């Protein structure tokens, strides 16, 4: 069981990390070369107009006042307005995030649920044919860049066999509905299947290899031998004992992977023309749309921190030594 004090400690740490991230973002965008206002405040405006606009964005205030205002806005979820689209940033990037999640959540679930089982199987048959070929394939899918596998998949399934759409979330001309409409639309999933498979294929190699390598060590442990002497069936030893003891590093890697998956899918979303957070951030950087970039950075950091928190909780459930000592000997 996860103790309340452990939960509280982790929660506290999460809040502190978030505060630090928000503060760093505040200064980051103020020391960045180039004037953030140059995009909206044209030098052709009169000095009066310029000042008026600066005042509108609150940039005429002293730094500490700006900081307090900024924190207050963050606290109520106001991340400013996109220079490019004129929309409030938060709803805008959240909407794009949902598109990203349609790809990443299934892919990561496949990778991190199936991966450990495959890795456990490899470790059990260490140096057998299954392990040798399997490990080689896992290393290949890990090494193969996503833009390459993605394009090959598009070539085969979209252009040659013509059974799957070649990109985007819906056919050209279709009007995007609300987030709920998009998630529960068959068309969306038809479009998503190829990027999900490609992403899962790339993601799954690490959980396979991490589980395999950790479990090879675990299989040498005395308790495994005791379980054999007990007459415990092989599958119970393999999954209930050996795999369970090998999951900790996978969970920690998985937490980071999920966090990064929010932004790390830039390439995937570009190859498959997917209107997600990764592409939005890329576009925003290109267009110097600072509020959107800032919001996207924040959301990504938030996800990394959130999933690390979840990983800590899951670890203490997986390995009871974690909550008492903070680390596993």
């Amino acid at each position, binding site marked *: 069981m996860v103790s309340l004090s452990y939960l509280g400690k982790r929660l506290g740490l999460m809040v502190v990390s978030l505060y630090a991230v928000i503060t760093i973002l505040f200064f980051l965008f103020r020391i960045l070369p180039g004037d953030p206002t140059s995009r909206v405040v044209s030098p052709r405006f009169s000095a009066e107009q310029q000042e008026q606009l600066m005042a509108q964005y609150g940039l005429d205030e002293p730094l500490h006042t700006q900081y307090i205002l900024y924190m207050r806005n963050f606290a109520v979820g106001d991340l400013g307005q996109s220079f490019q689209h004129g929309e409030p940033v938060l709803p805008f990037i959240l909407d794009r995030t949902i598109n990203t999640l349609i790809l990443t959540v299934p892919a990561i679930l496949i990778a991190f649920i199936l991966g450990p089982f495959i890795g456990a199987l490899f470790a059990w048959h260490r140096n057998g044919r299954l392990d040798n070929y399997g490990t080689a394939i896992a290393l290949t899918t890990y090494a193969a860049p996503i833009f390459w596998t993605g394009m090959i998949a598009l070539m085969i399934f979209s252009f040659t066999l013509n059974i799957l759409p070649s990109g985007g979330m819906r056919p050209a001309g279709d009007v995007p509905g609300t987030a709920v409409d998009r998630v529960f639309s068959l068309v969306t999933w038809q479009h998503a299947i190829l990027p999900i498979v490609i992403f899962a294929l790339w993601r799954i190699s690490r959980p396979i290899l991490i589980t395999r390598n950790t479990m090879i060590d675990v299989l040498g442990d005395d*308790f495994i*031998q005791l379980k054999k002497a*007990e007459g*415990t069936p092989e599958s119970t030893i393999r999954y209930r004992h050996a795999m369970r*003891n090998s999951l900790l590093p996978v969970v920690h890697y998985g937490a980071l992977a999920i966090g990064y998956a929010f932004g790390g899918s830039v390439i995937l979303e570009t190859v498959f023309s997917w209107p997600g957070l990764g592409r939005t951030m890329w576009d925003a950087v290109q267009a110097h749309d600072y509020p959107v970039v800032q919001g996207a950075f924040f959301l990504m950091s938030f996800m990394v921190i959130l999933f690390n928190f979840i990983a800590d909780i899951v670890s203490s459930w997986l390995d009871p030594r974690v909550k008492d000592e903070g680390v596993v000997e």
Partner: protein
Amino acid sequence: MGVVDIDGVSVEYATDDGPVRAIDDVSFRIEEGETLGIVGESGCGKTTLTKAFLRLLDSNGEISEGSITYEGIDLAAASESTLREKIRWKEISYIPQNAMAALDPVYTVGSQVVQVIKLHTDKSTAEARERCAELFKRVDLDPNRMDDYPHELSGGQRQRVTIALSLALSPSVIVADEPTTGLDVIVQDQICDLLEEIQEDIGCAIVFVTHDMGVVSNISDRVAVMYAGRIAEIGRIEDVFERSAHPYTIGLQNAFPRMEEYPSDSTLIEIPGSPPNLVEPPSGCRFADRCPFATDECRSTDPEPVELDDGRRIECLYPDQREEFRTNGSDPRTWVPESQSSTVYAP
């Protein structure tokens, strides 16, 4: 008729240097309800012997010859499913060497006992928990500790858990592989006492493997002294230790401190040299190179097991000279290798 009959068992490990014969033609019986100690220095094959017995050899090891018979079943040849259904834990259980690592760290100790009870019986979880609580009381552990994780217990407590675990199905034989190693002396003593009590209770045979001569003489009825994969001497504990017949047993005794003699005569006599390489074992007696009484014949002729009047069995070419060996063997000068004796005793 013994409970387990071990007949001509050899174990080989495949290594890069060629096959290593870690156990060479070993035969003995485990009698009903006895405690059989197996002693010897590191690498003499005592752990391999227990692993062969439990069929837990590493993947590169195999029982190349011989049979291990338990109630008509040859454990050396039995299929994994026969072992699992009929033998493992129900008849033969195991107390592992390292209690610190012998329990799965991610499950409570109680649940691991419950798991094995449910595996081999039709008991419900509640009944199995009840049985587990009984077992905990039997080994002097608070049944409330059932819901603790292994890391929350001390070394001695963990060893008590593994003992409770070994008793779960009231087996006929318990194999204890150095169960007291790594524990402090007081806890060692408690664990030994506990094992003795339990044996009286359930009447099981215990095979007690150790390198600690003190522990083995406390707990065992009979003892087998192993050297380089063979049994040098096996017999009743008082015969083997008080009237040792094999030069190796004599040497081993000399090398071990005895409480009653401390401190007046506490010098320990070392056996010179080290055990032979088992990839290419020397011809003749394996102890010949380190034996102060060895003759040329010892180096060329394999000693056959000889049975003495008291039922002991030794593997030595000169069983009749044992009195003489024992007298000379207590003199430290006997054990100085010939090549060094001139330098040590020269004026």
